[in-house]
C-alpha cells in the first residue's frame, strides 16, 4: 500500500487543529456570547405590551431607511434608583459574608479530609457530595422545617431548656446565611480538598525541622500554598451567591432584598424585560471584576515559572 499523500495528511492535521481550537470558541459563542448579545439587546429596548414584551432595536421604516433606537433609560434608572444599588450592595454583603463563612467552615473540613487516612477519604468526600443527589429545592425546603418557629431547631432548643419562646430565625437574614452556607459549602470544600491533597507533606516536616511550630507552619506554608484553592472555592461560592434567588425567596424575610429577587420581580411581576436585562448586565459586569482579579492572581502565581 502506498503511503497517503503528504499533502492530504497535512491538510487533515490542519483540519483537526482547526476543529480543536474551533470547538471551544464555538461553544463560547453559542452559549455565552449569543445569549449575552440577546440580553444586551433587550436591555437597550423599551418595554411594550406585545409579544415579545419589548420594542425592536431596529426597524425598516421606509425603503432604505433603517431606524435604530437605543434606550439607555434602563441603565440610568438602575444607576440612579437607590433601590437597585442597595439590593446590589446587600447581595454583595451576603455573598462576602457567606464566602467567608464557607471558607471558615470549609477549610478545616477540606483539611481534615485531605489529611485523613487514604481509605477514609472517598467516604468522607462522598458525605460532602451526597446531598447533591437530592434536589436543591427540597434541601432548602427542609431548612424551612428546621428553622420555623415550631420547627426542629426551636423544638430541640426548648426541650433542652435553652430558650423559652421560639427564636425567629426563618424569614430573617440569618436564615439566608444558614441556607446559603449550607448549600454552597461543598463548592468551597472540593477545590480546597483538591488543592490540599497535592500539598507535599514533607514541606510541613521541613518547616517543623527548621523550628516552626504547627500553627505557624500552617500560616506560613499550608495557607499560602493553598491560596489557589481558596481563590477557586471563594469564586465558586461568591459568584453564584451574588445572584442567588431561591434561598432568599424561601428562607429570607422581606428585608433580605437581593438583586436576584429584584431581577425576578422586574422580569415577572413588572414584565419589564428591558430593565431586568439591564440589571443582569450590570450584575455581570460587577462579577467580572473579581473574576479578572482572580485571573491576575493566578497569572502572577504561575507567571514566575519559566
Amino acid at each position, binding site marked *: 500500500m502506498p503511503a497517503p499523500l503528504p499533502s492530504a495528511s497535512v491538510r487533515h492535521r490542519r483540519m483537526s487543529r482547526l476543529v480543536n481550537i474551533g470547538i471551544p470558541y464555538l461553544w463560547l459563542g453559542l452559549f455565552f456570547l449569543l445569549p449575552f448579545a440577546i440580553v444586551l439587546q433587550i436591555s437597550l429596548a423599551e418595554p411594550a405590551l406585545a409579544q415579545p414584551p419589548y420594542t425592536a432595536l431596529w426597524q425598516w421604516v421606509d425603503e432604505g431607511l433603517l431606524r435604530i433606537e437605543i434606550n439607555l433609560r434602563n441603565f440610568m434608572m438602575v444607576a440612579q434608583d437607590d433601590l437597585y444599588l442597595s439590593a446590589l450592595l446587600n447581595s454583595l454583603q451576603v455573598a462576602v459574608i457567606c464566602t467567608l463563612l464557607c471558607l471558615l467552615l470549609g477549610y478545616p473540613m477540606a483539611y481534615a479530609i485531605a489529611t485523613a487516612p487514604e481509605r477514609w477519604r472517598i467516604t468522607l468526600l462522598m458525605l460532602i457530595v451526597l446531598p447533591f443527589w437530592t434536589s436543591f429545592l427540597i434541601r432548602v425546603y427542609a431548612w424551612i422545617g428546621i428553622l420555623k418557629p415550631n420547627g426542629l431547631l426551636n423544638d430541640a432548643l426548648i426541650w433542652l431548656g435553652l430558650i423559652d419562646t421560639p427564636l425567629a430565625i426563618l424569614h430573617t437574614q440569618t436564615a439566608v446565611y444558614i441556607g446559603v452556607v449550607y448549600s454552597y459549602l461543598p463548592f468551597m470544600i472540593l477545590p480546597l480538598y483538591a488543592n490540599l491533597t497535592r500539598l*507535599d507533606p514533607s514541606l510541613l*516536616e*521541613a518547616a*517543623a525541622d527548621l523550628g516552626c511550630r504547627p500553627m505557624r507552619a500552617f500560616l506560613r506554608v499550608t495557607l499560602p500554598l493553598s491560596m489557589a484553592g481558596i481563590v477557586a472555592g471563594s469564586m465558586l461560592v461568591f459568584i453564584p451567591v451574588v445572584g442567588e434567588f431561591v434561598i432568599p425567596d424561601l428562607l429570607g424575610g422581606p428585608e433580605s432584598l437581593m438583586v436576584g429577587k429584584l431581577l425576578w420581580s422586574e422580569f415577572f411581576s413588572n414584565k419589564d424585560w428591558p430593565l431586568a436585562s439591564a440589571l443582569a448586565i450590570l450584575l455581570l459586569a460587577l462579577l467580572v471584576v473579581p473574576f479578572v482579579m482572580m485571573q491576575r492572581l493566578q497569572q502572577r502565581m504561575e507567571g514566575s*515559572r519559566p
Partner: protein
Amino acid sequence: MATLAERRSLEPWQDPKAVPYLRIDRVTKKFGDVYAVDDVSLEIFQGEFFSLLGSSGCGKSTLLRMLAGLEYPSAGRIYIDGVDVTDVPAYSRPVNMMFQSYALFPHMSVEQNVEFGLKQDRMPRRERGERVGEMLDLLKITELRKRRPDQLSGGQRQRVALARSLAKHPKLLLLDEPLGALDKRLRENTQFELVNLQERLGITFVTVTHDQEEAMTMSTRIAVMDAGQIMQVDTPTAIYEFPTCRLVAEFIGSINLFEGKVVATEGNQVLVETRVGRPMRMRAFHPMVLGTPVTVAVRPEKMRLCADFRDDGVNQLKGRVEDIAYLGDVSIYRIRVGDGALVEMTLTNVQPRTEQALTWEQEVAIEWSPTSGVVLTE
C-alpha cells in the same frame, strides 16, 4: 604510622572513654505489626560523617526521621549531646535535616527559604541577612537568591536545601539521600564538596543512602542495615575488607563466596573444605570449632593468575574463562571452576586489551592469599 592517641582522636569509636554526641539506645519503631526499626543501638561521635546504608525498606530512613523528631520511637531512647530528646518534637530539636525531595518551599525565593529557620528563632534582621549571605556564599548560590525553587536545576536545588539546613548552624545535620536526585557526574563532584564542607564546619553528619559507593567515599563510618536491624557498623575499609556476615559482604561490591566447613585450625588460620575443590586456608579473627559451617569470602580483585598451579596447592582453583567484561581500567573475568561454580576475578588492564593473554574458553589457574579474604560464620 599514627600514634595511638592520634588514631583515637580520628577514630573516637575506638576510645572507650570518648563520649558519643548522638546515642541511640535500643530504639524500635513499629508501624502496625511491622518492625521498621528493630532494637537498634548506635553511638555517633562529634565530627563524624556517618552513613546509614541499606536497600529501600531496610528502616534507615525511619531511623533518620526519628532522629529528626518526625517519627517517635515505639521503644528506646535517643540522646543528643547527653540530653534525652526522645519525646522532644521536631521543632524543638537542635538538629536539622536535608530532605530527599529537598522540600523547598515553592512559594518562597531561595533567600526566603534559607532565612526560614532563622526567622523561627527570632534572629534579628541584620544578623539574619548576614547569615543568609554567608550560607549563599558557602554554597556558591548568591546569584540565585531571588529565584523560586521551580526556576532552579536539580543541582541548584540541592545546594539551596543544604544551605537552608545549615543556616541555623546545627551541630548535627541529617541528610536523607542527599545526592539521590542528582545525575551521576554531578553526584561524584558533590560527594567531595559535601565532605569538604563537613570537615570545614565540623558538624556531625548522619546521612541515609542506598548507594554503597557514595557511602564508601564520604563516610567515617557506615552502618549497614537490613530488615530494621544493623548488620555491621564500621569504617568503609573494614566494611569492605572484613565484612562480618554474608549480607554485608554481598551488599558492598561483588564477592566470591565458597560454602564449606572448618576441617583444621593452624594458629590463626583455618582450613576450610568447600565443594569447589581442594581445601582453602584462610586467616580467621576468631577461634573456630572444627566442623563449623562457614563461608569463605574473597573479593574478585584479590584473585590473581596462578603461575605455578600445584595439585596440592591451597587457595588455588582451575577453570575456564566463560565471560569477560571489559570496563576500561579493569576487566572482569568469570571463570567456571571445579563443580560448576562461577568465580569472578578482576584484573587491571596493564596491557592494551588486544594484547592481553586471557581470552574466552581459555583454561586458567587462579589463586589468592590466606589474608585476602575472610571466613564468615553466618
